[in-house]
C-alpha cells in the first residue's frame, strides 16, 4: 500500500476524532443581547385585547394564542383555540413545534403582562420571530371584552364605537363559549413537525 495513503488516513482519523472533542452546539440561533434590550424597550410587542378579540372572531389564520400559565389554570379558563405552553416549557423542543412556524404570529398571554412578558423575552432570546404579548393579560380581557364598561356621555364617538364592538364581542365570547366549550381547550398534544419531504423516493 502506498505510504502516502497513511497521510490521507491520518488526516481522516484526526478530523473525525476531533469531532468527538468538539463541544455540543446549541441548535438554535440566539438573539444578541443588544437587540433583545432594544426590543424589550419597544412597546411594539403588545397587542391589545380588542385586537385579539377581533382576530379570534375573524378566525385570522395567521395568529395563534399561547397561554403561558400553568396547566390547571389553563384547564379552568382560557381563550378560544389557545395552546398551553407553561412558561418553563418554552425552551423545550415540543414548544418549538408550535412557536417555530414561519408566518404564524404567536401571542402570549397570562393573567397579567408579567409572565407573558417573561415568556416573550425567553422566546425572543431563543431566536423565535413573530412573538407578541397580549397587553393586560386575561384580567384586562375580562375588564374590556367580557364585561366592558360604558364610556361616559361626554366621551368622543370613537369610544362609543369601541364600546359597541366590545359589547358585541362580549356576547360572542360569553354566548358562544357554552356551545364550543369542548374544543376551546386544545391540550399540548403536539405533533413533531415533519421534515419537508423534498424528494421522497428520489434517488
Amino acid at each position, binding site marked *: *500500500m502506498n505510504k502516502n*495513503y497513511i497521510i490521507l*488516513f491520518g488526516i*481522516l*482519523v484526526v*478530523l*473525525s*476524532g476531533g*469531532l*468527538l472533542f*468538539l463541544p455540543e*452546539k446549541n*441548535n438554535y440561533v440566539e438573539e444578541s443581547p443588544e437587540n433583545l434590550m432594544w426590543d424589550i424597550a419597544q412597546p411594539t410587542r403588545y397587542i391589545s385585547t380588542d385586537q385579539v378579540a377581533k382576530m379570534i372572531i375573524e378566525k385570522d389564520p395567521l395568529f395563534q394564542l399561547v397561554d403561558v400559565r400553568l396547566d390547571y389554570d389553563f384547564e379552568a379558563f382560557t381563550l378560544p383555540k389557545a395552546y398551553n405552553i407553561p412558561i418553563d416549557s418554552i425552551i423545550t423542543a415540543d414548544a418549538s413545534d408550535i412557536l417555530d412556524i414561519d408566518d404564524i404570529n404567536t401571542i402570549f398571554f397570562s393573567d397579567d403582562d408579567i409572565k407573558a412578558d417573561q415568556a416573550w423575552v425567553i422566546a425572543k432570546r431563543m431566536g423565535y420571530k413573530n412573538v407578541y404579548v397580549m397587553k393586560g393579560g386575561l384580567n384586562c380581557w375580562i375588564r374590556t371584552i367580557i364585561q366592558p364598561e360604558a364610556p361616559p356621555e361626554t366621551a368622543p364617538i370613537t369610544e362609543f364605537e369601541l364600546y359597541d364592538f366590545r359589547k358585541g364581542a362580549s356576547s360572542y365570547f360569553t354566548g358562544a363559549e357554552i356551545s364550543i366549550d369542548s374544543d376551546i381547550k386544545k391540550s399540548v398534544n403536539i405533533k413533531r413537525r*415533519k*421534515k*419537508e*419531504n*423534498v*424528494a*421522497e423516493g428520489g*434517488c
Partner: protein
Amino acid sequence: MGPLIPLGQIASGWDFIIALLIGIAFGFILEASGFSSSRNITGSFYGYNFVVLRVFFTAVIVSMIGLEYFDYMGWIDLNLIYILPTYLSPMIVGAVIMGVGFILGGFCPGTSYTAIAIGKLDAIVFTIGLFIGIFIFSEVFPLIEGFYYSDNLGNITIGEMLGISNRLFTFIMVVIAIVAFYLTWLIEKKVRKTITPYKFE
C-alpha cells in the same frame, strides 16, 4: 448559513442550472474513477479491483465529517437537510433486489449514465431495464402499497437509532473504512496474482 436553496438564498430559477452543474461534476468524478466500466465495478465483488469500495467509502466519510464540521461552524443547519426516511422492511427488500440487480447488471443507475456517455451498449440496455423495472413497480404499486409504507421509522438518523451521537458514529465509520481499505488491499494483491488478466473495453 446553508443549505442555501431551502433557506431561499438562491433565486429559484437557478435550481436547475445548479442541478446540471452538480450533475456534471458527479458524472465526471464517476467516469474518471472508472465507474463507467461494469467489469471494473464488479471487481469489488471478486476481489480483483476494489475501486468502488474505495471511492464510495472515502466519499461517505469525507462528506460525513464535512457535514458535522459545517454544522459545528454554523454554516449549515442539519435540521433542514433531507434525511432519507427509514422504512425498515421495504428498504431491506428493495436493497436485496437491488443487490441482485447490481451483480447481474454490473451498473447502478448513476454509473450506467456515464457508461452510456462513453458508448457502452450494455449500459443502454441496463438503463432501459431500469425504465421497465420502475414501470413494473408503478403498475403493481396498488398491490404492494401496504408493504411500501410499512415499518415507517421516520427521518431517523444512524445515531438516534443506535443510541450514540452522530459524531461518534462518524469516527467509527472512519475506523471501519480504513480497516476495510487495508484488508481489501491485501485481498486484491492476492487475487490479482491468480486471476487471468482482464481487458477493459
